[in-house]
């Protein structure tokens, strides 16, 4: 026991010393774990008083209750933990009186326990502003599982009417947005009322707040800023009906959640005369001792030695460790002098991060800002007069947080503007964790440096990410550093000559390209055969997994004509390997319905066919949208409707557009020479020829193409996997282009080709890609990864340096002759049609869970959008919003 506590030492001579913990929240539980790690529980009696009816749970993840977590699933206490360590836990029995002279704690039940050391971890309570009517039925706070259950219950009762219920959240800080996410998860029309002029005023600046607001509003939430709640109106039964705001406006609402910050729960400490701060919080020193050396305070109830109350869970955990070390008398890690309040979190699915001097308060500091309102991205870096990075705010894209936070305080290796630009627009691709110094902290939760991670690999011979996590604890807190950690571990392993497992998945130690060669040379025609002969030992005879099954199915489909196997993706074993999209020849959407894309080669379509699409969409109530690939997507079909819809489409001459497959999607075109005064070739005809030639070709990832009729490039061919641009002498062929998240302009492979040469080179290029690319590797990534890059591909494809040309062309010829329309084949076969039912035991019954509501004269899914599955480090707190 602590040397500075003579009575504890004295007590140890007679009986086991007693440690009493008041409060069993996240920080309390961490304190108990820290005691157990130090084996204090073996010699001391530990008694815990907890007000809530359940043991410690993950309050940070409260909202995830709506994504299927049960209250038990949120528990932080391992089964048998209390019993194993002999800890006495009194649930639903809060401590009520502390007698510091007698050194006793008395709980509500009347139980009195004498202590040698007392630890207060009472957390905080939600602040409810003094709004008239705040005690009406339907007014809640959002802090505990019980609060959440009560809100859910109340909302359910109110939602039974014709129009859905609505709710108001008072407070637009972290907790307020969490609460708003919960209401939205319950299907309520949700208002957020924030007194400050912007959301998350503590963490983000004005620009960040604006970006956040736009994104939150796009999700259908209604945001009111710069106003407070003035009065809550209730009906005759005392239930909330409306809230009047300080600007005089009023919101009709069924319930109100107060989420306007929290206050430290320091009443117990006040009652027994311990020092508390002017604005609350139990004053503690660096050892977490209060003004009475036998009493400690940790977590949100404590006013730390630096004069701050920390609402984040990470500093709370640190205090728990410090107090446990002091009580165990093993003060090996220093005291608690303050903590980094950098945070990265996902609120309502939006990434938000702030770190260091986010508001630019240092003398002479300057801002570097990148703002893109269209995509809701806002990034600001604060740079000191000497060029050092001091802090920043990231909204909408916080990917670089893991790299920027460790750089704080140092002069970055590249200019700050490069650090905020999106990848591809000047951001250096190579500036990853490898650019960081060894002292840089990678895992903030456990304070693990890059040097410690490197040492775990090189000195302690840890060879996998899970082993390094176990050894260093890095990545076991909020998890936001796992990506950087993985990259560091792999870099270190490769530098040490250790081969990194590049296997496709847990079932195969081979890459996709290696499996392709195995299938091709050994003429393997089934997945089971490949798994049992070439799978990892532990995976053989098993059921494979969702990663390798579609990948192998794609390889077999690509090689089918060559192997003499069936190319029809729904035949035999192939039927069981395909992702649901390939299985139903349509694209699964978020509510379990499917979308349909008929092929419209080159984007050319007759009025008659357009009318058929319109009629089909109208008759089946489908939502229609023009795609970026010059075709029409029809959304909202149930599986049992797919054959009926396709019967009409096939009758009208349509074919599958393979929008569901890793296959050729479209070949876009401009109108070209035929109509356009600038065109120099017939781009539409070439686009149609190419689309019909490569339709149905299964590949490692989707393939897109376009043909432009002149150098003005209206078809955007250089943004495609293979793009063709007309010249006055023929065609230029570009490869490896990409749009999307990681845009890349295609590179010129060959120029001034005639039609025949063009098609020959594309045949070879595509087959070489299919043969050598990794799973889900687009041509752009493949071109950058493959040894020798574009030059090598040009040698193989154009100059035929490997002598593969004829073989690749022959394989493509097999594909072209073997092509059959998958939908026409399906409709012609009753056996294949059997799978298109919603329920195996009620074939005629539609799925009642697939429902729609009107939107802009069409329909949209009637499905509550649940909040994101992960919510990394988040505050529990309070100083948050005012």
């Amino acid at each position, binding site marked *: 026991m602590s040397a500075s506590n003579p009575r504890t030492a004295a007590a140890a001579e007679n009986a086991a010393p007693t440690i009493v913990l008041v409060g069993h929240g996240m920080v309390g539980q961490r304190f108990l774990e820290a005691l157990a790690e130090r084996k204090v529980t073996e010699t001391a009696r530990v008694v815990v008083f907890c007000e809530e009816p359940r043991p410690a749970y993950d309050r940070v993840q409260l909202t995830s209750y709506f994504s299927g977590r049960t209250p038990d699933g949120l528990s932080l206490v391992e089964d048998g933990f209390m019993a194993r360590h002999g800890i006495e836990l009194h649930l639903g029995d809060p401590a009520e009186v502390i007698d510091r002279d007698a050194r006793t704690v008395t709980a509500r039940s009347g139980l009195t326990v004498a202590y040698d050391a007392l630890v207060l971890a009472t957390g905080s309570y939600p602040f409810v502003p003094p709004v008239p009517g705040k005690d009406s039925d339907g007014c809640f706070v959002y802090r505990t599982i019980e609060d959440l259950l009560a809100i859910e219950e109340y909302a359910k009762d109110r939602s039974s009417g014709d129009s*859905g219920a609505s709710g108001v959240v008072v407070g637009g800080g972290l907790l307020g947005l969490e609460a708003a996410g919960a209401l939205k998860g319950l299907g309520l029309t949700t208002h957020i009322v924030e007194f400050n002029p912007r959301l998350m005023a503590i963490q983000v600046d004005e620009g960040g707040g604006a970006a956040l607001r736009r994104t939150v509003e796009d999700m259908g939430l209604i945001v009111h800023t710069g106003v407070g709640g003035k009065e809550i109106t209730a009906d005759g039964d005392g239930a909330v009906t409306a809230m009047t705001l300080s600007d005089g406006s009023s919101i009709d609402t069924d319930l109100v959640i107060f989420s306007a910050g929290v206050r430290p729960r320091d009443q117990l400490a006040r009652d027994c005369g311990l020092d508390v701060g002017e604005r609350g919080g139990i004053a503690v020193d660096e050892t977490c001792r209060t003004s009475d050396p036998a009493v400690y305070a940790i977590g949100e109830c404590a006013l730390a030695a630096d004069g701050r109350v920390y609402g984040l869970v990470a500093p709370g955990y640190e205090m728990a460790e410090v107090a446990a070390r002091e009580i165990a008398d093993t003060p090996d890690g220093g005291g608690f002098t303050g903590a980094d309040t950098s945070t990265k979190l996902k609120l309502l699915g939006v990434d938000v991060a702030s770190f260091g001097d986010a508001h630019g308060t240092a003398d002479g500091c300057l801002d570097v800002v990148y703002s893109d309102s269209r995509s809701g991205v806002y990034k600001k870096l604060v740079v000191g007069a000497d060029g050092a990075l001091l802090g920043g705010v990231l909204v909408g894209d916080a990917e670089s947080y893991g790299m920027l936070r460790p750089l704080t305080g140092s002069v970055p290796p590249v200019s700050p503007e490069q650090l905020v630009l999106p990848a591809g627009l000047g951001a250096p691709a190579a500036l990853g964790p490898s650019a960081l110094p060894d002292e840089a902290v990678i895992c903030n939760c456990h304070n693990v440096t890059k040097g410690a991670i490197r040492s775990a690999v090189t000195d302690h011979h840890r060879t996998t990410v899970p082993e390094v996590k176990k050894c260093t604890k890095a990545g076991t807190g909020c998890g936001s550093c796992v990506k950087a950690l993985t990259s560091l571990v792999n870099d270190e392993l490769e530098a040490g000559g250790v081969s990194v497992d590049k296997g496709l998945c847990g079932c195969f130690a081979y890459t996709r390209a290696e499996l392709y060669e195995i299938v091709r040379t050994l003429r393997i025609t089934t997945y089971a055969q490949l798994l049992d002969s070439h799978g990892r030992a532990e995976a053989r005879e098993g059921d494979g997994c969702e990663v390798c099954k579609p990948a192998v199915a794609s390889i077999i489909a690509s090689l089918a004509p060559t192997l003499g196997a069936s190319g029809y993706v729904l035949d035999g074993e192939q039927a069981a390997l395909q992702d649901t999209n390939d299985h139903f020849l349509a694209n699964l959407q978020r509510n379990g319905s499917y979308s349909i894309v008929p092929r419209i080669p080159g984007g050319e379509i007759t009025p008659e066919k357009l009318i058929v699409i319109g009629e089909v969409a109208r008759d089946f109530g489908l939502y229609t949208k023009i795609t970026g690939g010059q075709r029409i997507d029809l959304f909202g079909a149930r599986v049992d409707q797919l054959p009926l819809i396709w019967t009409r489409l096939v009758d009208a001459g349509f074919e599958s557009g393979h929008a569901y497959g890793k296959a050729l999607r479209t070949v876009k075109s401009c109108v070209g020479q035929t109509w356009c005064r600038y065109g120099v070739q017939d781009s539409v005809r070439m686009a149609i020829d190419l689309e019909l030639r490569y339709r149905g070709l299964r590949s490692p990832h989707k393939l897109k193409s376009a043909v432009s009729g002149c150098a003005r490039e209206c078809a955007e061919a250089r943004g495609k996997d293979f793009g063709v641009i007309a010249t006055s002498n023929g065609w230029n062929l570009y490869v490896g282009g990409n749009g999307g998240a990681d845009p890349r302009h295609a590179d010129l492979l060959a120029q001034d080709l005639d039609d025949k040469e063009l098609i020959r080179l594309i045949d070879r290029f595509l087959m070489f890609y299919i043969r050598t690319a990794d799973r889900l590797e687009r041509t752009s990534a493949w071109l950058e990864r493959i040894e020798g890059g574009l030059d090598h591909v040009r040698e193989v494809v154009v100059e035929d340096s490997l002598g593969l040309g004829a073989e690749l062309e022959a394989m493509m010829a097999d594909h072209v002759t073997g092509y059959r329309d998958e939908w026409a084949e399906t409709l012609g076969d009753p056996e294949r049609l059997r799978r298109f039912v919603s329920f195996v035991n009620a074939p005629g019954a539609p799925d009642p869970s697939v429902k729609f509501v009107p939107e802009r004269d069409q329909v949209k899914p009637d499905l509550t959008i649940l909040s994101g*599955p992960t919510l990394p480090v988040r505050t529990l707190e309070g100083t948050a919003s005012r």
Partner: protein
Amino acid sequence: MTMAPMTPMTPTAATERTAVRVELLVDQRWFTVCELTDLTPGRGVAALLPDGAQVAVFLDRSGRVYAIANRDPFTGAYVLSRGLLGSAGGRPFVASPLLKQRFDLETGRCLDDEGVVVQAYATRARAGADEVSAQVA
């Protein structure tokens, strides 16, 4: 989740012939959902229970049948029956077709997010009156 009440309907179970029936333990009674031949190894089907609940029924490579609730708790969509079946460490799982979280088919536990569980049902396959195999998942 706000779900409209399920349309009441009586699921039909074709069991007249001597085919092998797939049965689920629902409220302590065996309920026939389909015939074994309705299932494809490595895939699932959706079925309706008498109370309107949806289950996802799977057949693995070795001929064992599993059943779990059809609702994907991460998205709220009734789609787990359309996921791909796999095995890891000898235990069967299905990967949701939407966001790919994996669920153990014997216990319903999510392998990617401890704490998320969907209901799992005991299953058995029976031919006529003779029990062919029984498993309790």
